[in-house]
């Protein structure tokens, strides 16, 4: 019963990842074709200024997306878990709908909304906030809006799942012992929901590093991030050894993310 899954994972995940790792040490000719041999050049080249800029861009975008998603997603999950009452299932379902709509179609809606003639500019002119349309498309802000839009549901669900099992008596006990709502939240609810927050951060941060369509469609492709770099190196420049090195690096970053997640989780468990 286990044979099919083991075969799939070994043959199409484990072995291919090893092949990529091997290619990342391969020599290449000036056109990027793979030559036999061993070199660390593919990794050394990653320290060039152009590549370092890509890492900075990716980290900045992933970190700000994660932070904004958590700041918005937490109150939403809190509201659904404790205050929405019988509306909770409907609210969860409404949040699932955008999640199930093709993400390119959702991003295209933002391309239209943020455009010079788009509804946001029209509305702002109508309200007298601005006189001439503002070019929002092709900016970092537009990319960020698209990223948050794409990943926000992924933060609400794990936090909601961590909030609902919290025993209401614990929160009531806090209030009975004289804690105000803010203190009850900071000393009871928030610590108990941290595992959900960590999971949400992991679910947003890791995929954010590998995104390539949103920065192209909303950011105008000006700020290249790791995802774009990998697509370019493999599909446009056909520079497999260099692309393999970047892929290995992205894999390592994700691994570090997962380790940090597990460490944070253990620390929270130990606190209890």
């Amino acid at each position, binding site marked *: 019963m*286990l044979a099919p899954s083991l075969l799939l994972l070994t043959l199409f995940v484990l072995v291919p990842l090893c092949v990529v790792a091997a290619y990342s040490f391969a020599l290449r000719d000036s056109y990027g074709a793979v030559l036999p041999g061993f070199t660390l050049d593919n990794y050394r080249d990653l320290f060039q200024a152009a590549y370092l800029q890509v890492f900075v861009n990716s980290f900045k975008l992933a970190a700000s997306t994660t932070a904004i998603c958590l700041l*918005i997603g937490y109150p939403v999950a809190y509201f659904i878990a404790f205050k929405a009452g019988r509306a909770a299932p409907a609210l969860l379902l409404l949040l699932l709908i955008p999640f199930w709509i093709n993400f*390119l179609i959702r991003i295209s809606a933002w391309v239209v909304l943020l455009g010079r003639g788009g509804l946001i500019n029209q509305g702002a002119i109508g309200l007298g906030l601005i006189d001439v349309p503002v070019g929002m498309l092709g900016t970092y802000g537009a990319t960020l809006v698209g990223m948050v839009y794409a990943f926000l549901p992924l933060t609400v669900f794990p936090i909601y799942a961590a909030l609902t099992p919290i025993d209401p008596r614990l929160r009531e006990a806090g209030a009975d012992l004289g804690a105000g709502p803010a203190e009850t939240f900071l000393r009871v609810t928030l610590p108990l929901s941290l595992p959900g927050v960590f999971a949400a951060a992991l679910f947003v941060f890791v995929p954010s590093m590998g995104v390539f369509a949103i920065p192209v*469609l909303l950011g105008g492709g000006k700020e290249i991030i790791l995802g774009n770099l990998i697509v370019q190196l493999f599909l446009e420049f056909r520079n497999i050894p260099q692309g393999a090195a970047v892929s290995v690096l992205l894999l390592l970053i994700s691994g570090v993310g997962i380790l940090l997640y597990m460490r944070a989780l253990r620390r929270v468990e130990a606190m209890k």
Partner: protein
Amino acid sequence: MSGQQAHRAGPGWFTRVFAHGLSGWVTLITYIFMLAPIVVLIAFAFNAGRSTVVWTGFSLDWFEVVWNNRHIARALQVSLIVAVASAAISTATGALAAVAITRRQFLGRDALGAALAAPLVLPEIVLGVALLVFMSFMGVTLGYGTMIIGHVLVSLPFSTLIVRAAASSLDLQLENAAADLGANEWQTFRMVTLPQLMPAIFTAFILSATLSFDNLVMSTFTSGVGTTTLPLRIYSMLKLGITPEINALGTLLVVANVAILFLVMGRYLPLMLKTSRR
């Protein structure tokens, strides 16, 4: 539902949201942020002109344009084939693994459970690149086969987790009774365990098919000549500029996806409502 409850759910919802302070406000604004773009997108699918921002009158012309676009029809066909094939493989593989993990004791059981969930936290783009490099290394031509395998990797963690959750909550007495009555392991699985797992397997299939149908990243690296999926086609259309044709196509996809969502959730929503009423 009592009259009092119905009244509370009625006109009072707005004040109720605002009575809840900050989290209520954030939730309201978030839902507008999440849903308004979709409403605007659908509205402009019915625009008469070429513009996606200036309303010039109602028409269904853009739906006709989508209907007559051979590229879209072809991409839809490719997407459906890949979605059904990958979902079938993913669900079957995931269900077998889920039953084995929940029913049997064996060395490395926890490790396997973690490995099956691993593609969930590994960046999909790296899995795609690895498959591309491996397939060209083996001399395999990219096409349906490579793309179906890629999509199985993406959906396998989900189908395994769904069936696993269902399998671990089943009453083991039924399976023990079957064994006591002389059924062997395979007979017990086929006649006792499997029928009870069918709702979860159905859900896993629908979710896997949806994930495949929407997939862009894995398809970017594993599709070959003549196997352009719908998301790949939409991506290249978007890079050229947006006409209401995209909106019309999007509207059709929204309707299809929401219909499927309700089909699946229809089984679980009454259950969720019941538990929330406790």
